[in-house]
């Protein structure tokens, strides 16, 4: 198979960047999208051209590193897969393929197709955990958890943090990512304890990082490679409103010894 690739090239964060056209020939329909890019890079190296930089690691759809915006859709045309699980048989022979990085002010481009997603880490650091230490833990079966809640929690926790939700959202909103984490904990008794604090802190951090707002287009759900549901966004909204209305003021205790 042959393809015409229009790839975003940008030397570094300060560079302006632009689309560059490349031709690749003789690609097996069974090769993955990244193997096709590998072939392009081998071709570029032999011509002495700087190869295209793109993020990838596990190549089995679980690490969430890959982040290509292909023909106007994050992770390409298929539903429920990451870029690394995409194969060339999903494209037409001779097709023009546009490849761009995720676009969001909070995800600055580092080089070519690689963006910096540490904004997601900052959101998690602001509350995406249960405050427990590794000692003094009760037995794992001490608190029963309804199977339905546990399964729903897993569904939310299956988020791989790739950022396709942000990339697809017309507003570059991170609501699906944040709500998946809020839901993961909100559905478990272990996470409920600090639920009010978590949702307020995580939402505040998300807002401060420059992501857009949710206008319920649900593009995120359509593009999420793990098919995380927007019901999580509603749950976060619910948690957030309830926390804003009902949560007591945080008490600052100072103690001297």
């Amino acid at each position: 198979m042959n393809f015409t690739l229009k790839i975003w090239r940008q030397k570094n964060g300060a560079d302006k960047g632009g689309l560059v056209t490349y031709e690749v020939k003789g690609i097996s329909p069974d090769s993955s999208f990244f193997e096709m890019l590998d072939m392009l890079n081998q071709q570029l190296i032999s011509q002495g051209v700087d190869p295209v930089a793109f993020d990838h690691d596990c190549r089995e759809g679980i690490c969430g590193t890959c982040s290509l915006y292909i023909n106007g859709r994050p992770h390409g045309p298929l539903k429920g897969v990451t870029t690394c699980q995409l194969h060339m048989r999903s494209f037409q022979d001779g097709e023009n393929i546009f490849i761009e990085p995720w676009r969001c002010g909070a995800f600055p481009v580092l080089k070519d197709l690689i963006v910096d997603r540490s904004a997601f880490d900052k959101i998690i650091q602001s509350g995406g955990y249960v405050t427990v230490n590794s000692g003094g833990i009760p037995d794992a079966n001490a608190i029963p958890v309804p199977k339905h809640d546990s399964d729903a929690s897993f569904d939310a926790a299956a988020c791989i943090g790739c950022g396709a939700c942000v990339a697809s959202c017309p507003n570059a909103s991170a609501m699906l990512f944040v709500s998946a984490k809020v839901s993961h904990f909100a559905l478990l008794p272990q996470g409920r304890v600090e639920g009010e604090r978590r949702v307020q802190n995580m939402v505040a951090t998300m807002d401060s990082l420059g992501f857009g707002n949710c206008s319920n287009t649900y593009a995120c759900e359509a593009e999420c490679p793990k098919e995380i549901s927007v019901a999580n966004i509603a749950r976060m909204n619910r948690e957030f409103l309830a926390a804003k209305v009902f949560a007591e003021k945080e008490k600052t205790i100072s103690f001297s010894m």
Partner: protein
Amino acid sequence: MALAGLFLVVFLLVHLGINLLLLANDDGRAFSAAASFMGTNPVIRGMEVVLFGGFLLHMLFGLLVSIRNRASRPVRYQHRNLSETSPLSRYMLHSGIIVTIFLALHFIDFYFIKIGLVAPPAGVERHDFYHRTLVLFADKGYSAAYMVGFLFLGFHLNHALQAAFQTMGFNHTKYTGAVKAASTIYSVVVAGGFMIIPLWVMFSR
């Protein structure tokens, strides 16, 4: 924004109810009585202020959020975004702006006359909305513009109502389908209901 929007949703239903009284074959008595009640009852007068506040808030928030949303993607994609989305949900700002323009016309034609800012056309009394309506809808161009305005309001509402539920935190495996259906029914009823009136004026009189 969702809260203000939900408030407007209720207002629209009341407004529609009163407007539909136009259709009663009583030479506008019921309609005029309702209009006069709405225009004189102090509670309603108070609500009017709240209503304007609601409109302004809804528009203000809508604008602010849209500006922020655009700013969150300073460099845009080269390829058109092809992600599948909830129908017309991408165009809420656009349909909102069209509805706002319509609203401005509507104010000039009705509300500003009522409060005396604009002089009523010849032969129609300032508080006589019934005849004012008949005069306006006699103009086919005006009627068409009026209907287009409501068509966009319908699009706006179709997404708005179910989105407001989602934003307020209501999403349930059993009931969300019903909310979406109700949202569509509501938008068809409201848009269609308002559009019947010019049609009625055009074809039955």
